[in-house]
């Protein structure tokens, strides 16, 4: 009995634990003892006003910023000092709020760069370009086109990434991140600058991607209605602190959240979080 419950506990062990992360930049406390746990397979939303520390938390999780204190655990193992490259190899991929594509490369090549580790091949064969290497290349190209098709970018494969319109760039960032075969996908404002129809498409797309690759998704987004419908759980950050955590319904009713969004008018009538309906 106890053995089987141990087994269940191990299976349900969180994919990522964020434990008391603080991040100080000079006089600014960007994150103040933030803790979260992500369960495998969920879509977890991170909302909060501008400057609340959402992107800083992403940077800490993905290894671009070092936390001043606290720690992150990946499947129970501390990730301190691993750096962005190693963390990506462990299974954490991300997109960037202010889009960081490889702009001089084509759309297809951007995804191929994401397939960097899948592209390992013996050096001599690669140099001479013999059969086995070409077949391997062919499989990579096919994989890249598959990802582009999933994100509805295949028609743009040979375009320079720097020439793409805004919405396509956001989707290409997702394709590139997916190419690294992640277990956890961090999406930083993927719907920014999109119109309502595009936002709706994106919501369905994120759900599809999660199901297709059985991913865990951590998403930052300002558009509250989208988040209410998309996320299994939500955390709310304000001034670097986690002020709420729970299901969308719980978060929507939380008086602290209502106050943060309405700027201290004390809740009551017309909560901003309630605009999701």
């Amino acid at each position, binding site marked *: 009995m106890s053995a089987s419950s141990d087994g269940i506990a191990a299976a349900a062990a969180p994919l990522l634990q964020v434990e008391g992360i603080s991040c100080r930049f000079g006089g600014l406390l960007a994150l103040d003892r933030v803790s979260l746990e992500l369960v495998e397979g969920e879509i977890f939303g991170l909302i909060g006003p501008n400057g609340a520390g959402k992107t800083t938390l992403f940077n800490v999780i993905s290894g671009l910023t070092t936390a001043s204190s606290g720690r992150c655990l990946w499947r129970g193992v501390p990730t301190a000092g691993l750096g962005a*490259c190693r963390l*990506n190899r462990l299974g954490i991929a991300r997109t960037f709020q202010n889009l960081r594509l490889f702009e001089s490369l084509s759309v297809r090549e951007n995804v191929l760069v*994401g397939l*960097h580790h899948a592209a390992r091949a013996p050096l001599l064969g*690669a*140099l001479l370009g013999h059969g086995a290497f070409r077949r391997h290349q062919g499989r990579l190209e096919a994989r890249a086109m598959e990802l582009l098709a999933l994100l509805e970018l295949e028609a743009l494969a040979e375009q320079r990434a720097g020439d793409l319109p805004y919405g396509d760039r956001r989707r290409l960032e997702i394709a590139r*991140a997916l190419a690294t075969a992640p277990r956890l996908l961090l999406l930083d404002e993927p719907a920014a600058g999109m119109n309502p129809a595009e936002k709706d498409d994106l919501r369905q797309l994120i759900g599809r991607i999660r199901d297709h690759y059985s991913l865990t998704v951590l998403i930052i987004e300002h558009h509250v209605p989208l988040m209410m419908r998309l996320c299994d759980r939500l955390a709310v950050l304000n001034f670097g602190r986690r002020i709420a955590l729970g299901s969308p319904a719980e978060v929507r009713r939380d008086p602290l959240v209502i106050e943060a969004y309405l700027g201290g008018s004390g809740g009551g009538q017309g909560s901003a979080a309630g605009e999701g309906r």
Partner: protein
Amino acid sequence: MDAALLEQMLLGALLALSVYLPLRCGQLSLATPGFYAVGGYVAALLSTRVAAFAGSGATSPLWALVAEMVLGGILAGLIALAIGGPVLQLRGIYLAIATIALVEILRVLNLNLPFTGGAMGIFAIPQPFEQADGYVLFTLVLLALACWLCQRLEVLRLGRAMAAIRDDELAAASVGIDTPRTKLIAFVASAVLAGVTGALAAHFLNAWNARAGSFDASITTLAFVVFGGSRYWLGPVLGGLVLTALPELLRPVGDLRLILFGSVILLGPLFFPQGLVTAERLRGLGALLGRAPQAP
């Protein structure tokens, strides 16, 4: 055109490729002449001090030249490997300054080490070829090999990783590219190519001294790449060929030639900010030839 000038042009093209390799990875390194000098000293010392390398006939043996080039490349590569770790943590202009310092350190060492012949350098380096034609043929093969390797980079994951780092180093790291390692590979490859070229040049020039690796040479080799374009290997090759030939071809105009040469270097980037060879022009050329080359 005489063979001696052609040989200098080919050597210029090889050095331009050595500057291009780190630049393809977004790293502005001016260390090429330093490694070039190191390779040259390896060849000069071996072929003048070691009897087997000098040979007994009228010309020194070809295997000795190849061995010296390999050893020169290895020594230059080892120096690059040793200093690359810390130096490549610098970015942009700071990396350029550090590599200029490296070139100066190597130059002063070459002037003062007990076995490098001081300011006079090393003379009477034996010739593996009787005439310049031999050098030209040999260097053409070497340049073709270097160009072929650069062309393969366009389709290899290493080449794509380098291009990704050039575009956005942070994003490259976050898709799982080991950016310090990739930059080090580019830096070492650049040093090996410069060392190999130096070993060959020492024989061709017959004498070798510390002036081979000077700050002036850093700027000249950088001009090759700026003039030709740094996005595709054809650019530096073209830049190296043209800018090496130009001062010689301008000899008839006398004292004006350096002014004209300077103007070309100045006006080149003004009218062709991306260099002579760009992705668009390559595509145009490809359409003209009826098939698209692998353009970046």
